[in-house]
């Protein structure tokens, strides 16, 4: 099947295309140089064409996401949608945590075609995959959690990188996981006893390993296994005033490790996630202020790191993370309902509703910090725009964030009329007048996430050979002035005029027309030296049988859970 999207204004940063009028040719689900005259024509004249956007970090599937839905019927009730019989669009509900079908539709409507589930408890991997399968349209992958895994803590406490690599290689395959996710290393294990760790040189009770050693060791394993993505790091001390020091110290740890992916073009060794929550100065909520300038400066000066933002959207939302102690603290602070799930030998999690009120001082500063980070990191090749959905706000607010970044006037209106004055007083946001271009938005939502995830061979760009994931927005860059027409920008990005997924027209005029489409599951299929792999697994099984509550043979996720398997190969040298 051939298709051609004609005369659009194309932004494709990975190929250096900045607002050129050109045609995009599609054949058999891939972008090609040209197509025959028989190709079906889609007119995009006067419209923006970008690669399908790539979500680098969100919580869309799995145990804690579903608990977030389950414990908040009041959130579901306020945003419910019915069946659309004509297009077989399924019903659903949920404002901050939409149900699975709605999640797929809503991402697709905004032009997103790939999304990462950023936290998968290995023992509950089947659950994550069942939900990912129930999310239509999006290609996806899930990051298993390693930062509090007992095996990893033991190996790295002993400095045994090789065994750790063998174990992680096995676990990635067993859980059909994609990347090494580290959340509050050692802290969630401490939460197993109701505690936490502070800074990167602390240890959890009964374990002899520090967060710094965990970060370093796993970064080494990551490059040894030649994984597509770098380690994906949620630093210690999330949300604590004064935590920026921990953040920068953590980022320093893996510096100097040689980048070594088997595929893609990643050139960094660590991805710091939702850095807004990690860029706080001060000593308490009373003298709390932004340290975004310091963190942004660090990112500007170092080339081994990318970050995503975790932009606060000023909504009532549902926070959820594997950072168990942090969620308990949040519950103690706001007094709202609290879910928690400690997962044996591996990890934990928590879920708490949160109201980011623009008129309250702390959320106003948090909003400003996210904006500062996006605007002060000079090179959008180093950042990905996220809300850590649904933590800082639901992913459906991305268009609003793009509009904030593209319009100083919009931000000024926020500062003058909507936000608590702390936003101006406790951050430098009011002094920044930079505005993102469409090209930079495309970088931070397409090129950069695809590259850092190691998917840029076929995601995040529109060069020949790429998956034909294309978003078309009904905004004419020649006539629109994002600076003043920011509402039009927001609306334009909210509902794409056309979205193609693997070459299939999936969204038309902002509505999903191909609701039944199933996405691919990317997972890391790494190889390690067979003898040591077998020896490590034997020992793992011996411990497993004693301390897990399920059988070793019942742990790996069966192939039945992956409808469209897309293994990404890596090899250990």
């Amino acid at each position, binding site marked *: 099947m051939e298709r051609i999207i004609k005369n659009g204004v194309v932004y494709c940063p990975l190929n250096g295309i900045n607002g050129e009028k050109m045609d995009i040719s599609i054949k058999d689900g891939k972008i090609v140089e040209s197509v025959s005259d028989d190709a079906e024509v889609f007119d995009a004249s006067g419209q923006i064409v970008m690669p399908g956007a790539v979500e680098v970090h969100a919580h869309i599937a799995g145990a804690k996401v579903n608990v977030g839905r389950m*414990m*908040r*019927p*009041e*959130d579901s*009730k306020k945003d419910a949608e019915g069946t659309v019989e004509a297009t077989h669009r399924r019903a659903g509900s949920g404002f901050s945590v939409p149900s699975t079908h709605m999640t797929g539709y809503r991402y697709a409507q905004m032009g997103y075609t790939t999304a990462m589930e950023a936290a998968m408890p290995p023992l509950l991997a089947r659950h994550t995959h069942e939900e990912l399968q129930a999310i239509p349209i999006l290609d996806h992958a899930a990051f298993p959690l390693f930062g509090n895994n007992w095996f990893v803590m033991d190996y790295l406490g002993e400095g045994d990188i090789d065994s750790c690599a063998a174990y992680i290689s096995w676990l990635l395959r067993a859980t059909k996981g994609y990347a090494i996710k580290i959340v509050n290393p050692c802290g969630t294990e401490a939460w197993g006893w109701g505690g936490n760790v502070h800074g990167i040189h602390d240890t959890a009770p009964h374990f002899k390993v520090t967060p710094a050693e965990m970060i370093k060791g796993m970064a080494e394993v990551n490059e040894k296994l030649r994984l597509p993505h770098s380690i994906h790091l949620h630093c210690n001390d999330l949300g604590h005033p004064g935590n920026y020091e921990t953040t920068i110290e953590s980022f320093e740890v893996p510096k100097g490790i040689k980048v070594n992916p088997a595929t893609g073009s990643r050139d960094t060794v660590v991805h710091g996630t939702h850095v807004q929550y990690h860029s706080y100065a001060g000593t308490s909520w009373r003298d709390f202020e932004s340290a975004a300038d310091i963190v942004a400066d660090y990112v500007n000066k170092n080339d081994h790191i990318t970050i995503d933002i975790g932009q606060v959207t000023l909504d009532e939302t549902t926070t959820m993370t594997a950072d168990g102690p942090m969620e308990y603290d949040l519950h103690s602070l706001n007094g*709202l*309902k609290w879910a928690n799930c400690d997962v044996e030998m591996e990890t934990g999690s928590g879920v708490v509703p949160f109201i980011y009120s623009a008129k309250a001082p702390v959320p106003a500063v948090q909003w400003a910090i996210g904006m500062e980070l996006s605007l002060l990191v000079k090179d959008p090749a180093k950042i990905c725009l996220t809300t850590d959905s649904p933590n800082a706000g639901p992913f459906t607010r991305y268009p609003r964030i793009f509009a904030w970044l593209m319009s100083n006037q919009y931000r000024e209106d926020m500062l003058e009329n909507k936000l608590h004055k702390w936003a101006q007083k406790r951050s430098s946001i009011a002094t920044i007048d930079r505005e993102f271009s469409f090209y930079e938005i495309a970088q931070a939502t397409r090129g950069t996430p695809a590259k850092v995830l190691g998917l840029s061979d076929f995601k995040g760009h529109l060069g020949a050979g790429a998956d034909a994931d294309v978003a078309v927005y009904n905004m004419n860059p020649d006539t629109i002035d994002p600076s003043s027409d920011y509402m039009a920008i927001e609306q334009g990005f909210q509902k794409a005029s056309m979205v193609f997924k693997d070459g299939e027209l999936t969204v038309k005029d902002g509505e999903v027309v191909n609701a039944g489409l199933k996405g691919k599951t990317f997972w890391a299929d790494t190889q390690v030296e067979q003898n040591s792999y077998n020896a490590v697994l034997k020992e793992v099984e011996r411990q497993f049988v004693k301390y897990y509550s399920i059988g070793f043979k019942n742990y790996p996720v069966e192939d039945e859970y992956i409808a469209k398997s897309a293994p990404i190969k890596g090899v250990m040298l």
Partner: protein
Amino acid sequence: MSEIILTPKEQPQVPLEAPNIKPDVFAGKTIDEIKEVEINYGNDTVKLSDFFDVEGTPGETAGEIKIIIDGDVSNTKRIGQQMTAGEILVKGNVSMYVGLEMEGGKITVQGDATVWAGQNMRGGELEIMGDAGDYVGSSYRGDWRGMNGGLITIHGDVGYEIAEYMGGGKIVVKGNADHMPGVHMSNGVLIIEGNVTSRTGGEMSGGTIVVKGVIGQFLAGFKYWGVEKNIQVDGEDIPGVFYKFTGDNAIKGANGTVYVAVAGNKHVAPE
């Protein structure tokens, strides 16, 4: 003043849902247009006139419209949902959710209501001359922000968990209440003139509950303050002699107040 009279025809076994029966929807419509207003019949959508005769004089604004339901609609749910102005008079019984999320105006039910009368009410007045069911003036599942304004008066008895998560407004029950009136209440006033089975004010963090009748069993999480005479609640003088409790101290920092008439309630005072 406009009066629009809805006379129930034969009512179906499967319930109707009629959030559109309210002055806000009828305003500016002719009688013929009102007949066409949609209601739900199970999983079908039908016209109001399929199950009601419609007559009367139409009105331009909600505030000038009085809807009279001339008969029993005990199988019609959601009458007056989110209404903001005008009046509804039901000359019979109603089903669930009468006055759900209502913001203004007045609803009077001459018969009984069932469950969730006045759920998440914001303002206006809801008066039930007969009994009502459970969850009068409660919140929606999972929401810690329940009724926060308006007045609900029930002349008969009510079921359990009335005023659940109530955060404002006033509820008066002339009859008896089943267990847990005012559970998780944080503000507002709940007055029960009859008896309560048990657990008055369980997990309340604020607000005031007055029980003039007899309480079956009271909760040990409250603190006892002694006897007070002729109390004043929300600017209203309430004559009588009451035991005063505060709590529920099961909840951290709770400062709810429960007054229980001394008469018949010796067993709840700790001495």
